[in-house]
């Protein structure tokens, strides 16, 4: 009895990483479920942006038409901001010794980060659901096909997953939870606002305009809008540039490129923890 091998079937490689990643994600979600305050706080922020932009700025930008246009941008912004949760979550796990606990276990290196990005992806799905409901209340509608809507949500979630790996890299580089908190958040404002998420990039001065045009947040917002069939009011009509014309393909490309870049960066950073 005492010598029964309890752990004979531990899978390795990508299967092992995903298996352990799902276990960690489950643990993170259990944690989240027991801190309802944090979940509510995370949901209040996009709702606040919806109401602020729709009713403070929206009146001068096209009223009801702008509110409909706005939602694509809100979705892209909301999931981008969720990247800060990844940074804070990983930094907190390091701070509390959980990462050490996991690192002393026979787990594939990437699985702790994968688990965190997967649980934050779930959180993004919740965010999207709640913001969508809020959008419906202020007059936003799905004006395209159901399939397009599914593709739109899928694209936004893929983007959420990609941004989460940037957050993971920041969280693992931060020396403390406080640093992760500010460093994980501060870059999100320029990234989401220097974009076509809420306004037309045509009124921005160069080089902001070019940056905004090619910003993955713009691409994701534009792609979601076009898939949802939401029209832009005259005040915020986007330019007829390549990233706008090919918004869906470009958004997909951006998400994949970000994952391809930051996944290895985050995992390398995780390995480096051992060098202290």
């Amino acid at each position: 009895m005492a010598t029964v091998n309890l752990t004979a079937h531990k899978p390795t490689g990508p299967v092992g990483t995903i298996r352990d990643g799902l276990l960690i994600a489950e643990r993170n979600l259990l944690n989240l479920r027991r801190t309802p305050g944090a979940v509510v706080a995370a949901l209040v922020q996009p709702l606040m942006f919806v109401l602020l932009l729709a009713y403070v700025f929206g009146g001068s930008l096209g009223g009801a038409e702008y509110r409909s246009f706005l939602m694509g941008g809100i979705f892209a912004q909301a999931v981008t901001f969720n990247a800060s949760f990844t940074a804070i979550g990983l930094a907190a796990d390091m701070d509390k010794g959980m990462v050490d606990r996991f690192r002393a276990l026979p787990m594939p290196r990437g699985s702790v980060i994968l688990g965190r990005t997967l649980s934050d992806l779930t959180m993004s799905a919740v965010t999207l659901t709640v913001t969508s409901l809020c959008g419906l209340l202020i007059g936003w509608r799905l004006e395209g096909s159901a399939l397009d809507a599914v593709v739109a949500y899928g694209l936004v979630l893929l983007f959420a997953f990609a941004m989460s790996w940037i957050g993971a890299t920041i969280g693992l580089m931060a020396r403390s939870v406080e640093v992760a908190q500010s460093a994980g958040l501060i870059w999100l404002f320029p990234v989401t606002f220097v974009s076509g998420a809420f306004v037309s990039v045509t009124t921005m001065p160069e080089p902001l305009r070019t940056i905004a045009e090619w910003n993955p947040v713009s691409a994701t917002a534009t792609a979601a809008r076009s898939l949802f069939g939401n029209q832009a009011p005259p005040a915020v009509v986007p330019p007829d540039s390549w990233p706008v014309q090919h918004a869906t393909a470009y958004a997909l490309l951006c998400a994949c490129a970000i994952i391809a870049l930051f996944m290895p960066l985050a995992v390398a950073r995780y390995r480096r923890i051992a060098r202290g």
Partner: protein
Amino acid sequence: MNTSGVNPAGPLRQPLPPQGDAGRGPVSCGEQDMIVAEGLTRSFGDRQALAGIDLRAPAGTVLSLLGPNGAGKTTTVRILTTLLRPDGGRATVAGHDVGDAPEAVRERIGLSGQYAAVDERLTARENLYLIARLYGMSRRTARRRTGDLLDRFALTEAADRPSGNFSGGMRRRLDLAGALTARPAVVFLDEPTTGLDPRGRADTWQAVEDLVADGTTVLLTTQYLEEADRLADSIVVVDHGRVIARGTANELKDAVGGERITLRPAEPRAVGAIAEVLASLGPYRPETDRRTGKVSVATDHGAAALQRALAALQAAHLDVRDVSLAPPTLDDVFLALTGRPRSADDPPAQEPGPPVQDHADGPEREPGEHHGAGTRQHAAHRRGAPAWRP
């Protein structure tokens, strides 16, 4: 002061002998040694945490790393559990190199203590289940193992409460249970009883004794000398990232030598006078514990010295309420080795002689002054350090 010019740490702090010393091959061949470390060094910035640590723990034994805060105990544990890379040196755990085969090491170890953690928002059961699953157990095996561990560590009643509300002792038990989840061959316990109440400490000791009965190899770090004394087969005393002594508890005590007389004055105000009388008797300087009001002094002559001390006190009309003669505790050993003012400055006479010598005006130590080098020499000179084999 002894000024023989011997390297202060010399006789006591020796590196492991060249390999093959006892018919044992190099690191990779030590089948019976579950933990081997050779010349581990590690710096953090310009602070050297480890300055060359050598360790060896045969299978099924308890090795205790004993030292104060900042001695390098946790850094050593972190290196041996693959959490930290050493700057230099090498180590194998359960036959696998921690640098080359960290995965293999992780499959065979359990870690509990300062730097391991329980997830406060998960219940005890969820914590253990998660760890069991992460060790690779199936859902069913993990559930069963979790139940067993909860029983064994008396956590069944609290199993479904969030561990964040646990008492310190329950938390440690949960952490320890986590470390034992996969029945590891080697268990690392980093200060497992720090901050525990006496009962929690006794429970933890029992758990360690059970582990050893099962044949597990344990590396235990502690600041508690009593703990090392009680649990360890061999003790390595570390200070400032170096091994300053190693041996069994008894060997360490022998090396410091003698016994201690402890007296409690009938009249608390007489403490000073009693200390003076004792000081006039022997090579060792008496110490007064202000908190307990007791005076204690080391001696190499046991009962004879005690009789003599009592006779001297009686002659001086100083009454004593109680008195004890006891072998040195590891506390005394440790303090002697790390150079705190705990023993006499000069090496005591080896040859038989009068149990007491007038040495009252010998050099005295200021508390906090660093005299480690001298003290270590004494310990070594006194016994020729026979027990201090590497």
